[in-house]
């Protein structure tokens, strides 16, 4: 085995076609795209790839394929045919869904019983469940409902040797065995191919309202934000939107109408003298707008909630000095998405400066999407964890031949 002796992809095409069907295995430039119909076909494809030392990139609709380090061409294993919502036990508030189902397709079906998976990922109409889980994506709703780690209750995964393994189950409360699904969530397809996922569900937010405050600089929001976070108001989203000129803070809360009236009054007090106005739910697309900026470097930064306002002010200062353009959405849980457009030297300088500032207090900056000219100059992950040797050992145990997205993840895992 070994990549040096790997056969040409076209030679494997007939075997892949025999597994998934001729119309579902195609050569596309340097990669071969194969679309399995079920979990056993995934296992057969992985076994074949492993025997032949081929890199495998699991994929849904490809919305986040540019995230992480680039992967050598090989087999693109598309999950789009495995797209069924297999089970919706609405009285138990759980569901089981295949990885290739798009987010919106799943949510539409769950909504018939007034339920949802309480997460707001990017590009919900195109993005698939598997890709969202593999990249641990999620937006403003994380504040109230937690992230995927808190919403996934079970998973079926195929390992690089074709082993089909289940983890967790279909009940919300369950401590039997290791939570393999937590390891797979956010692992960028480096440990196994996620085939289906069980979620816990929440009721759809019946009545919600969004309020917005505007200020010239994020520093104006520091006091009101602190008061809001220290209050008993359970918002289901708080974000700061910032670019070079403007800055706004949005709050969404779901509750009974009486309670919303009461809280609107409290919020107005917190923000005084900054006026707080009711606004449209469309402000919550701001995060996706960041990721849609072509040509920009897209960064995911993580910091402590109390650092948000000072960090944003500082970032704005730095980008002005460097003649860079910036757009930011910051969730008040400390997850910040940044689109940065600058000359390459300035971009490198700004990213490294932000990274060293945040890492000093336990935060991080991941350069999720980067223009070609920056790719060789910036470490995508900036992972300084002292647990990296253990992470590499886990990868070695799960995927000893390194066929699953080799090198894409933190520490070149």
């Amino acid at each position: 085995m070994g990549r040096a002796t790997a056969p040409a992809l076209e030679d494997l095409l007939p075997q892949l076609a025999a597994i998934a069907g001729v119309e579902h295995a195609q050569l596309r430039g340097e990669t071969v795209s194969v679309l399995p119909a079920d979990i056993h076909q995934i296992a057969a494809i992985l076994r074949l790839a492993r025997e032949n030392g081929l890199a495998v990139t699991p994929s849904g609709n490809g919305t986040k394929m540019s995230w992480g380090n680039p992967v050598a061409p090989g087999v693109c294993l598309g999950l789009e045919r495995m797209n069924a919502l297999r089970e919706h036990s609405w009285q138990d508030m759980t569901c089981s869904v295949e990885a290739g189902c798009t987010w919106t397709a799943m949510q539409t079906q769950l909504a018939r019983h007034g339920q949802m998976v309480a997460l707001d990922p990017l590009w919900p109409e195109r993005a698939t469940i598997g890709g969202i889980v593999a990249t641990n994506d999620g937006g403003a709703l994380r504040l109230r409902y937690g992230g995927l780690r808190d919403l996934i209750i079970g998973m079926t995964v195929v390992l690089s040797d074709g082993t089909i393994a289940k983890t967790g189950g279909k009940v919300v409360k369950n401590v039997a065995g290791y939570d393999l699904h937590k390891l797979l969530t956010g692992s960028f397809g480096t440990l196994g191919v996620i085939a289906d996922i069980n979620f816990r569900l929440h009721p759809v937010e019946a009545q919600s309202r969004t309020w917005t405050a505007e200020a010239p600089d994020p520093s104006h929001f520091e006091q009101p934000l602190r008061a809001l976070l220290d209050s008993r108001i359970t918002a289901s989203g708080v974000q700061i939107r910032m670019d070079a000129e403007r800055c706004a803070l949005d709050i969404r809360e779901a509750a009974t109408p009486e309670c919303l009236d009461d809280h609107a009054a409290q919020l107005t007090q917190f923000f005084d003298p900054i006026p707080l106005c009711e606004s449209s739910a469309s402000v919550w697309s701001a995060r996706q707008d960041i990721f849609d900026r072509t040509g920009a470097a897209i960064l995911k930064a993580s910091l402590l909630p109390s650092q948000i306002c000072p960090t944003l002010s500082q970032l704005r200062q730095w980008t002005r000095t460097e003649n860079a353009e910036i757009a930011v959405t910051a969730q008040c849980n400390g997850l910040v998405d940044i689109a940065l457009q600058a000359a390459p030297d300035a971009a490198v300088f700004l990213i490294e400066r932000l990274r060293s500032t945040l890492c000093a207090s336990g935060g991080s900056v991941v350069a999720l999407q980067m223009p070609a000219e920056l790719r060789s100059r910036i470490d995508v992950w900036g992972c300084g964890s002292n647990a990296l040797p253990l992470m590499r050992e886990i990868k070695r145990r799960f995927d000893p031949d390194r066929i699953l997205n080799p090198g894409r993840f933190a520490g070149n895992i």
Partner: protein
Amino acid sequence: MLTVAQIAELRAAVGADALITGESQLQTYECDGLTNFRVLPGAVTLPRTAAEVQAIVRVCARHKIPFVSRGAGTGLSGGALPAAGGVVISLARMNRILEVNYADRYVVVEPGVINSHVTQRVAPGGYFYAPDPSSQSVCTIGGNIAENSGGAHCLKYGFTVTHTLALDVVLPNGDLVTFGSPSLDAPGYDLAGVFVGSEGTLGVTTKITLRIVKRPEVVQTLLAAFDSPQAAGQTVSDIIAAGMLPSAMEIMDTLAIEAAEAAVHAHYPMCGGLLLVELDGPAIDVETLMRETRALCDKNGATEVRVAQSERERMLVWKGRKAAFAAMGRISPNYIVQDGVIPRTALPQVLAEIERMAAAVNLRVANVFHAGDGNLHPLVLYDRTIEGQEEIALDLSYRILHLCVDMGGSITGEHGVGKEKQQALGYMFSEPDLATMQLIRCAFDPDGIANPDKVFPRTRLCADRSGPYKPHPLETAGVAEIF
């Protein structure tokens, strides 16, 4: 057994005042809350720092000596049962709260800190630590991390893992590493997510960063009496179907009510099925939702519905519920506690089947459960002095767990697999599932020295030996109820 030289190495690692080797003192550590499994360790160490934990683990790694970490020893599945002749690492002396950060809503604690002390510490700021296992007045955060502990209120607030931001861990090779961060989504695998609930088989945690939560504006607890647990269960389903998420929903059957009344005098209405519903949040919302809850209770034929009128009354309601296990001693000489989980909707069917199974072998089963998340605690009552009855009771308790798995549930919702349910794990998961979990185990602990022979089914084909319940010393002393 440990050699003289190995004991000398341990002494060098922690000092003579933190090493126990005398047999009578070792006996204190021979079991946890599952008291009829007893194994004498070779030595008990009482480290004060992460560096000392590292030094102990390095001695163990060098000589391949099994080690078991331990908090207050309140676990109910034998997770802290020592390995014969091995080393126990008691974290009791690492009991400091290192940091309280209200601005970013977290605390940093050592593993020996008692669960309820976290809430006590942050209460002045208006915060609390949400996971509330019934043993919270004595159990430690380190043990909660090992078991991914829940409690009555995890229905709304989630489990220990939901509230764990970061962990310092001494790996089985002695390396000290950090998983996660107080800020979210640290790059790399979510090792904190895997470590929580790994029952001490992946290493020893020495420092934990936990989320704290703002106290809700109001908390109200409703009691509703029904003719049967099934009617109470239907009400739970209706509350969920109405889109409500109470902070807790608990059901007790007649036997459990009788026992709790005898022990605590909680003034429960005597009935076939008692439902407790706790709602919290903004006063306006709680008032509206409480009205809806009452209406649903009435719809399902509740014979009595009342809301605790004072904080004292509310605490008494919970005291009765939390004392239910220990109170079984008042109505039965011996009993076995189980911890199965089922999909909530299977509740009526499972209760009927448990009743049928118990009647078939002439035993009584009391039921106490976290109904909101389908976590049953069937208590199999029996009398050991009647020959053969203990075996029948044990067999029944395992068949109930198998029933839970058959209904699409789990063998454990919060007590862990430990020593007690190793074989049952093999009923719930297939061989490839278990082999995949072993990949994680082997990456962390290739020599298998961290809490060996726990969680996973033993290779030898023997049935599980569960424990009839015997009072824990803490319980006998009246310090705590253990569940």
